[in-house]
């Protein structure tokens, strides 16, 4: 009788233990290397901590400092928003257009799809090196062709007014293949029979786009937009390598500023604060997206 009870207990324990075996390792890593550091970062944002002394709790001083006393931070904030506003719609619309183009039943569309995605696999440093040359004001390739067409040469990355736009164009070349691929997959999921029956009912191209394609593509567009938004607020490596945040700080982004604060000036508390601000912005962005999506879906 006792043995039966013991065996049942053993079996129960085993049953409870098995999920832990599967899910445990990953969750531990998540906790140790993701969740815990974020909690610590949150706490650090309320501290003053440079590399020499011990951390000192100073409440909201870091926040008030960067928001009200730090024009450099505000510049990075504006630059980041400028970048997102420029790049996100561009990446989405061009990606969508290319997906349409490369979905047409013509020879050569496979090659186009493959090549469209090719820039994506090239590392940021190589991308930056090439484009720094292409963008060179005096002997760069792009200005050479502009001049041979009779146009003025453009100070792509030499002028503060143009620099961010130039960065966005590079990112467009570099990353649009990703969006194109996802949109293409979404387009291909739409059954052809829908278009055929619409055509029988007399719908033209625009109508079938508006009433069939767009609604069915909405989840995909939503995903690309939200994910694209989240990643574009975090922009850093392309700016670091292409323009180093210049000229005249016109391309410094939030993450770049965070890097400088933490690892050039060793203000770890301040860097943590910038990170929290970044998180807050992304959080609000995602919240807005989900709220508006719920409204349109009802």
């Amino acid at each position, binding site marked *: 009788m006792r043995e039966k009870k013991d065996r049942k207990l053993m079996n129960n324990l085993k049953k*409870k233990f098995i*999920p832990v*075996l*599967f*899910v445990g*390792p*990953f*969750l531990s*890593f*998540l906790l140790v*290397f993701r969740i*815990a*550091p*974020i909690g610590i*970062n949150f706490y*650090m944002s309320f501290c003053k901590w440079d590399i020499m002394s011990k951390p000192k709790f100073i409440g909201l001083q870091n926040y008030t400092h960067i928001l009200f006393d730090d024009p450099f931070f505000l510049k990075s904030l504006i630059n980041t928003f400028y970048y997102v506003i420029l790049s996100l719609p561009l990446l989405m619309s061009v990606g969508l257009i290319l997906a349409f183009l490369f979905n*047409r039943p*013509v020879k*050569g*569309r496979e090659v186009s799809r*493959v090549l469209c*995605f*090719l820039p994506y*696999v*090239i*590392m*940021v*440093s*190589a*991308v930056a*090196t*090439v*484009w720094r*040359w*292409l963008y060179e004001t005096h*002997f760069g*390739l792009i200005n*050479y062709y502009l001049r*041979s067409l009779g146009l003025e040469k453009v100070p792509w990355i030499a002028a503060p007014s143009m620099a961010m736009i130039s960065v966005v164009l590079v990112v467009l*070349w570099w990353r649009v293949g990703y969006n194109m691929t*996802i*949109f*293409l*997959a*979404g387009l291909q999921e739409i059954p052809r029979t829908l278009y055929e029956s619409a055509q029988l009912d007399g719908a033209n191209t625009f109508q079938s786009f508006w009433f069939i394609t767009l609604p069915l593509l909405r989840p*995909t567009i939503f995903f*690309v937009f939200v994910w694209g938004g989240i990643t574009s*607020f*975090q922009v850093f*490596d392309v700016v*670091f*390598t292409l323009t180093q945040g210049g000229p005249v700080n016109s391309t410094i982004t939030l*993450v770049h500023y*965070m*890097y400088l604060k*933490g*690892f050039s000036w060793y203000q770890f508390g301040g860097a*943590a604060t910038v*990170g929290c601000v970044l*998180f807050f912005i992304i959080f609000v962005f995602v919240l807005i997206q989900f709220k508006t999506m719920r409204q349109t879906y009802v």
Partner: protein
Amino acid sequence: MMSKMIVSARKRKILSMIALYIAYTVFILVFLMPIIWMFSTSLKPEAQVLSYPPRWIPKSVTLENYREVITALPNFFRWFFNSIVVGVGTVLLTVFLSALASYGFARLRFKGRDIIFLGVIASLLLPVQLTIVPLFLFFTKLRLADTYISLILPSAANAFGVFLLRQFFMGIPYELTDAAKIDGCSELGIFFRVVLPLSRNALMAVTIFVFMWSWNSFLWPLIIINADEMRTLPLGLALRLGVGDVAGGTAAPRWGIAMAGSFMASLPAIVFYLLLQRHFRSGIALTGIKG
């Protein structure tokens, strides 16, 4: 009347075909041009690099830039090796952990399973930059800066693989796993012998993703690695080959060498991609659909 309509409809079709082909050509050129330029410049002797008007086909082809990269940057291949070690290590660790966890979330029942999974997905929204400063202090205090471990371990805390694989595992018919259970197979056994072999495509997609992400990772290696011989490839290129650096700081940039280095670094990824491009793009399509 009918024949006129048919002819103009055909004319329109031909015109739109021509327009389409023109558009295709333009886009193909736009995507290819910078890469070809990189290669072309890397083959030019230093004197010709700045020649004006710029030439696509070099007047004289030389390999001296490539030789210069190797001699001026003795760590170049070390960087390459580092990136591979970190990439492979990250893939092994991440895929292993994610697959195990995804199986647990997809096929096992336990208390709190769905809430925990929701939390895991929510972690995807947390920007990784929030972890950078604390992790830097953590690894530095443990004297683990400048190590492979510091590059590999944090990358495993990424819920993306779990997200993808769980969807996939949920789609495996229960008849298969039930049959294995009846045969006396343990959960672990089912995982290794039934589910994993069936998930080749999904696993390959996750592998490619994680490897590419690790290969291109920039911010974290920049922060945690200071020793030149431990740098990863993107880092080494940017910091040591950053135009203007090879040949001493603010001197005139040596574009030929910079392009050669960049091309050498990009070639493996390009080849890798062209060979496996179908897997790449179907993997990405998978994320879009599941997302």
